[in-house]
């Protein structure tokens, strides 16, 4: 075998592996920063959520921000359909359904805001992205407080907090880019 070719292949492989590590390390670095800045965001939750997206392996910080914002949209969208199911559930009483309808409206706002943030990050308007992500993070908590007062927030508290935490992850990555 031509040793120079083998060397070349080995070296290329090494370089490829190296850059994969670097990209992956940035998920961990970003999540360390977010977890330190926001005690509500669990480091492992952050890492697992971002790594779930195949783009995270080669994403830079801006790319990770977009991923986090996309995840927020997805989380809010999926919670919207859960709310729809709950509203259609005969075991849920009428006043609670009324509250859930309000939550639905909060989550629609969250989807709009998070989607707007994705566009803003893409076009480099980080200030605007931050505002939108703040709103996207507040809306699920409005829903949580609403249900909490009625003693019913066990219905959605996990979804509410996951969504707020994803918005927070996106927000903190964006903050570094400002």
């Amino acid at each position: 075998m031509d040793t120079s070719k083998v060397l070349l292949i080995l070296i290329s492989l090494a370089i490829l592996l190296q850059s994969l590590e670097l990209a992956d390390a940035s998920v961990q670095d970003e999540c360390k920063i977010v977890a330190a800045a926001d005690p509500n965001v669990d480091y492992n939750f952050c890492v697992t959520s971002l790594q779930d997206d195949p783009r995270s392996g080669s994403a830079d910080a801006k790319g990770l921000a977009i991923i986090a914002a996309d995840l927020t949209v997805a989380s809010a969208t999926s919670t919207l359909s859960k709310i729809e199911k709950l509203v259609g559930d005969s075991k849920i009483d009428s006043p609670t359904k009324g509250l859930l309808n309000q939550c639905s409206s909060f989550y629609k706002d969250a989807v709009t805001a998070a989607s707007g943030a994705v566009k803003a990050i893409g076009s480099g308007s980080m200030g605007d992205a931050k505002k939108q992500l703040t709103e996207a993070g507040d809306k699920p908590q409005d829903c949580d407080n609403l249900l909490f007062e009625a003693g019913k927030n066990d219905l959605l508290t996990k979804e509410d907090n996951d969504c707020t935490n994803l918005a927070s992850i996106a927000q903190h990555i964006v903050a570094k880019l400002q």
Partner: protein
Amino acid sequence: MGLLRSSPSYPWTNSMLLWQRTAFHFQPQKNWMNDPNGPTYYRGWYHLFYQYNPASAVWGNITWGHAVSLDLVHWFYLPIAMVPDHWYDANGVWTGSATILPDGRLAMLYTGSTAELVQVQNLAFPADQDDPLLLTWVKSESNPVLVPPPGIAPKDFRDPTTAWYVPSESAWRIAIGSKNDSQRHAGIALVYRTSDFLSYELLPGVLHSVAGTGMWECVDFYPVSTESATGLDTSAATGPGVKHVLKASMDDDRNDYYAIGTYEAATNAWVPDDPEKDVGIGLRYDYGMFYASKTFYDPVKQRRVLWGWIGETDSERTDLRKGWASLQTIPRTVLFDQQTGSNLLQWPVDDVETLRSGSQEFSNISIPAGSVVPLDCSTSGGAAGRGVLGPFGLLVLADDDLSEQTAVYFYFVRSTDGSISTHFCHDELRHACHPALLAADIVKRVYGSLVPVLDGETLSVDHSVIESFAQGGRTCITSRVYPTSATYGGGRLFLFNNATGVDVTAKSLKIWQMGSAFIRPFSEHDSVSLH
């Protein structure tokens, strides 16, 4: 007496302890006081109620003490207004607020701690609406008018606010603080709607919430004018020249925080102007010993007036020995700061100027430089440290050889970009320095705060309390001090300049001697002579 053996106390003399009583800060003749309650103006008199233990100098057996004044300065003690005599307040008649209705009647809402220690809201009203002294009170047959809603914990539901009227609904609203501890330890303010103060409807959602801040006690919610230097009635209409202040006392850190924002009654939403300085994480009314504060609207002088509870920083054992604990602040006017647009201004009510007796005026006093740059009050080691740009200020309650002193001072910090920020501090580290004094007996702190620009300060020194106001009232600090030799005739006042690189000139300084307010029990004689 075997209870308090763990840390030996300072050997206070009766003379030292007696000296601590103030001349013009409201305090009962003896025993324990905490939150100010139901402050209001009614038929010619300012009323102050307060959490009061009639039996001891520590918290317990809580009743509503009562006092009246014609000018917010000269107070007369009246009999206790309410005691824990029903199941719904058996464990304490706790904090509450007064609402004056358009026809002049007064509704008092307060928190009762029930026989089962559940926090509920109760309605009380004067037995005789024509009695300007409001001596006797009646509790509603409908009590409790509010119990904790389904999701709220029984001990997270207290301190109802003054009600504000919403014309579009022909109904009133009140706010009550609580917390949502399900995940984010968020402090929240609930809002109820009522048309008769007897039945209430919980409005869905919260007025506002801030994650991480924990239980919100003593919520206060009121409008401020952004265009004129007057106070606004609690029910003043929202609109272009009006913002709303949301305030709460944070149970977790025992400080009062406020934020300025915009209120929309239709959606029951309040939004802070600056979310980074939201309630519980931003501005405080006072950077010293100050808690459970509450405002009311004075229709006579058209001002919003703030009361705050000043606790003791000495030990419980000493409080029991001296037989009393706590003060109220001198009432302060509260205004929106039109210059910065982002904070409030507080100042002692001008009625306190009637206590001034003698005065001395100084101008252009040069204070040459005396070096180490402190970065903030808590690391600076207090006023004894030296930097190029400070600290400099006043030493009050100081004895001749300055072994005892309390410094009220400024220093500047120059940051790497060349800009200068100013700090305003109280330094209690050396207020009581007798060699026998043991640190455990008194809490000593260096309180400080960041202050944008330097101009217009006032200090009130009244025995064991100092209240200071910097830059026209942007930053306020209240401290307790317990000197052992800078007492009676032994107290001196100094200017100091510990800066190494700058001379300081005090351009103008005026000192007034203050007389006593002679706070005393009300007598029929007073009723005649004062009217």
